[in-house]
């Protein structure tokens, strides 16, 4: 059965790069791996072969194993689902051309997360890779990935469908009386007649696809609780991360979703004790040599203070996490990671941090 690793975290913590590094490492340990990324930096995308073909998995050259990478295009995934599952071309075309659908598929908050779940489910059902690593969209809160699918599913709730759309009559596709005149009046006043018609038209068309979406959204949510699924929270070594982590952990706990640990990215290097300074050599100006050693000592002192506040933040995170939770420290990179060798370096750091042992081990 396919193992699923879901990388969550707010924007800017390095999730995408970390997801790619983890996937490459797993592949080069000899497994078949798929990584679904979200908008990687251009050169990383090039390295993964994603520059041109976003939504289709691309084979990444690896020393061992197999790695496929894809960049999720939510709009295209949604269009493909409509195309595949629409009962006929008429329904398909009407949905794809609908004003409201175009807004929903491009801009609705949560649609990206929902489509990521659809892709994840399809990959797990196809069962031809050993591991899927899912990078989640950059949001303000890590939590958004967990709650967005429910919001989308709520939109497709049966009650909403019934309320908006009378069962399609023999003449098909006629709209569609609003369930309540008062509510309809209010909505029309707020949103305007056109919007209401667009929305009703969309739901009328979507009615025939609703069952399939519903079934898959239930299956996808079950997948998030499966024994082979692990959530990782990628986070920064700063106090601001705590509130987010707590809210995230609370939802995982409530919904019985398996937490693997915190990946604390861009940690400062471990502190160094002041070294013994070699004496100034013959040709040196002793004053400038002393200025240099003083400046280095001052830097080391500042750096120690930085590590202290970082470690306090990590300890605080762990104090609020379930017992036995892990914090894996990834030191700040020596440069921008934009190619496979950079990803391999990060893969080494992941191995050194202990994260891989936990992810490889039994649930």
């Amino acid at each position, binding site marked *: 059965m396919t193992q699923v690793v879901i990388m969550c975290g707010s924007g800017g913590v390095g999730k995408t790069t970390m997801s790619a590094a983890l996937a490459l490492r797993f592949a080069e340990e000899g497994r078949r791996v798929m990584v679904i990324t979200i908008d990687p930096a251009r050169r990383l995308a090039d390295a993964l072969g994603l520059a041109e073909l976003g939504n289709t998995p691309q084979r990444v050259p690896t020393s061992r194993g197999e790695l496929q990478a894809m960049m999720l295009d939510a709009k295209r995934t949604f269009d493909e689902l409509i195309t595949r599952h629409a009962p006929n071309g008429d329904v398909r075309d009407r949905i794809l051309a609908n004003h409201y659908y175009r807004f929903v598929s491009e801009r609705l908050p949560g649609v990206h997360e929902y489509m990521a779940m659809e892709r994840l489910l399809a990959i797990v059902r196809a069962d031809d890779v050993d591991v899927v690593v899912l990078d989640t969209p950059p949001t303000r809160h890590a939590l958004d990935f967990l709650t967005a699918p429910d919001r989308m599913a709520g939109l497709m709730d049966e009650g909403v469908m019934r309320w908006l759309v009378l069962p399609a009559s023999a003449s098909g596709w006629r709209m569609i009386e609003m369930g309540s005149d008062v509510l309809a009046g209010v909505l029309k006043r707020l949103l305007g007649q056109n919007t209401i018609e667009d929305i009703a038209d969309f739901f009328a068309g979507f009615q025939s696809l609703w069952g399939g979406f519903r079934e898959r959204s239930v299956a996808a949510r079950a997948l998030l609780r499966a024994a082979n699924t692990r959530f990782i929270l990628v986070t920064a070594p700063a106090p601001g991360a705590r509130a987010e982590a707590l809210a995230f952990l609370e939802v995982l706990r409530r919904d019985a979703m398996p937490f693997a640990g915190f990946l604390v990215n861009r940690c400062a290097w471990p502190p160094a004790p002041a070294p013994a300074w070699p004496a100034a050599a013959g040709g040196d100006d002793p004053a400038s040599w002393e200025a240099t050693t003083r*400046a280095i000592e001052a830097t080391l002192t500042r750096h120690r203070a930085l590590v202290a506040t970082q470690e306090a933040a990590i300890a605080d995170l762990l104090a609020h996490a379930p017992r036995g939770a892990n914090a894996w420290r990834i030191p700040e990179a020596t440069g921008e990671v934009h190619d496979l060798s950079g990803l391999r370096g990060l893969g080494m750091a992941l191995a050194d941090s202990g994260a891989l042992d936990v992810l490889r081990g039994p649930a």
Partner: protein
Amino acid sequence: MPGLSDRRVVLVTGKGGVGKTTVAVSLALAAARRGKRVLLCETQGATRVPALFGRPSKGYEPTQVATNLSTLSITPAEAIQEYVLLQLHFVRLYKMVFQNRVMGPFVDAVPGLHDLVQLGKVWFAERETENGRQRWDLVVVDAPATGHGLTMLGAPRAMMELTRAGPFYENAKQIAELVEDPVRTGLVLVTTPEEMPLRETESLHQRLGAFRRLVAGVVLNEVHPLPVPDLERWPEERLRLSRSEDPAMIPTLRVIDAELRACARQVDARVRLRALGAAYAELPFLFRRDLGRAELESFTAPLGSLT
């Protein structure tokens, strides 16, 4: 082009984790010190600011955290309620529509509504009066990260396009007029010297389109001091140090090398950010992860070049 301090609304955006909140709070503090009555709005339910001043959050209600400075946290749900009540006038009707199990998720999913109502709250605050005069001289918004921030700025137009008529259309139009007016509204872009946030800042600047006129400042955050006094002498000095047999020399040089790399990135960042043509400021990296009020106060001076 007016300076930042003459505007009524300042939106602060940047890639996640670059210090938007730090800059928003410091700008707000700087204006408050000059005697302006300032409201600082966090968005998407974030409540980080009151804690920086050692105060509990009162959420959507303004909390005074310093002289002349109040803060509140905008949640989409509360903003929708306030926004819609102004349109519907009846709480009962609001509840019928928005707290209805069937209707709730549907209305909630109206495209761009969350972004629009959050800007709507800013718009209310901007025009709010108290004892016959404006309640706030300046509204600072700790806005969502770059891409989302741009979507938010476009939300009023998106709503106008979607509705094409009606009260939502009319109101969205008023909000659009505020956020598109460079006399009243300014945009501050924040970045750190790392490649990804820099590129995101440049790309946002490109994609701003008509909103580019709003850009009133660019802030480079987390600027490191030079770890050694003389860069020209350093290669030779480093060679000497690397021959030391003290095992502590290895981690020492690693820390210094990392600091020097940070300094090199800054040189590049400065050139690229100044090329954007807006007022420019830098904030120092303070070698701690737990910034508090004292640190934020210390940032008001370096941000002076924006005001």
